[in-house]
């Protein structure tokens, strides 16, 4: 029995895949922007002088980094309603991605901050800057520049990981694929094509982050 591949069977359903790509992109963009923001705050807290806050953030980071994203997602979507927190599929997916990326980027950005020479901070102190000013004007940009490749990789990982959000029926790309194969029984062809789509998306995302990095850290003369 020779199987006959029929990739044409996907064509009528292209709209589903298109919608999926859009939603995966939305999830990724929101997750990345807020997640990295959370990571910056987390890294700040880890470096802060208040040991309690630093330890709480430390526990958060370890909890997230040592449990699967899928379980985090299930906990947020199925478990949180028990606490009265009801979220839509999309909200739960976005929240899970933010929380997940927040933990990883906290660690990554913290490493970047630690790599800033002490002299930079002393110079800023000597110019009478306070902690917030030092962080904002002197520390964070060079720190982010240092770890931008690692942060970019992590964002790509989170984008790829979002494929399991189909499991709570968030209608992203994998959800679209599942839906199509249920309609046309061409599972292999559908997943093959969708894998290709993810590959293209991860390449584009990587390029986009590179361009963004150049834009953020490029030498612009502000004055």
């Amino acid at each position, binding site marked *: 029995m020779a199987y006959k591949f029929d990739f044409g069977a996907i064509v009528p359903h292209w709209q589903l895949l298109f919608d999926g790509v859009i939603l995966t992109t939305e999830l990724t963009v929101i997750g990345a922007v807020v997640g990295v923001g959370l990571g910056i705050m987390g890294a700040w807290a880890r470096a802060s002088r208040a040991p309690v806050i630093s330890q709480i953030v430390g526990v958060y980071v370890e909890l997230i980094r040592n449990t699967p994203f899928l379980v985090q997602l299930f906990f947020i979507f199925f478990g949180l309603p028990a606490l009265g927190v009801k979220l839509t599929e999309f909200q739960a997916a976005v929240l899970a991605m933010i929380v997940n990326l927040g933990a990883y980027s906290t660690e990554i950005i913290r490493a970047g901050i630690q790599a800033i020479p002490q002299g930079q901070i*002393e*110079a800023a*102190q*000597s110019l009478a800057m*306070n902690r917030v000013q030092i962080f904002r*004007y*002197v520390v964070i940009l*060079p720190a982010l520049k240092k770890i931008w490749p690692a942060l970019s990789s992590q964002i790509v990982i989170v984008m790829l990981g979002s494929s399991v959000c189909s499991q709570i029926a968030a209608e992203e790309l994998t959800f679209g694929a599942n839906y199509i194969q249920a309609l046309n029984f061409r599972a292999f062809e559908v997943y093959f094509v969708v894998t290709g789509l993810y590959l293209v998306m991860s390449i584009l995302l990587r390029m986009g982050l590179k361009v963004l990095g150049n834009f953020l850290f490029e*030498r612009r003369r502000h*004055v």
Partner: protein
Amino acid sequence: MSLVELHAIHKSFGELEVLKGIDLSIDEGQVIALIGKSGSGKSTLLRTINGLEVIDDGVIIVDGKKISDRDADLLGLRLQVGMVFQQFNLFPHYTALENVMLSPQVVKKQSKAEAKQIAEEMLAKVGLADKMMHYPDQLSGGQQQRVAIARALAMKPKVLLCDEVTSALDPELVNEVLAVVRQLAEEGMTLVMVTHEMRFAREVCDKLVFMHQGRIHETGDPEEVFSNPKTPELSSFVGGLA
């Protein structure tokens, strides 16, 4: 009353006591050189003056006001006391001009135009009017150090601390930086410097402070101290240099 008064300053790093009771007063317009072997505590002493090192015991009075280690006090102190470092410590992601403008803008809340005007003035003063748009890594060590001086001056400090400002420089770049420091001294800026440039210290300073094992071992007029050291330690220190 002196501009800065230090009384019975003590400072330890772990077991090691680096400052063992320092008394020092700095008058307005005075140019003071701290000299001594490495490990004598001179850099640490300098860094206590603007609160980069928090003292264990003793009193620091700046402009009649006692400084505690509270953040607000430290920020107030640092508004009065500028510092220039051995390693320049320019911010690599800002141009020379931005390096100088940053603190007046964000700390003193000056307008951009105001900050820019002062920054241009200060950079011109250190002879770098034509390098304002350069980034630190596009400048030589001597130029970077002059930007660092301009950056400190833009805050209009009452005292400027110089921590071995020429030690990281190639020999041929030392003079351009010393010339700027000399000019500041001549203009009446209050300066405290840790330096190994003995000839420069002798020519420019009003007061020499020789540190030895965490204490002020000998102090006085530079001519006097150099030509007629009273203690064997200073004598051997000066002699070792000659």
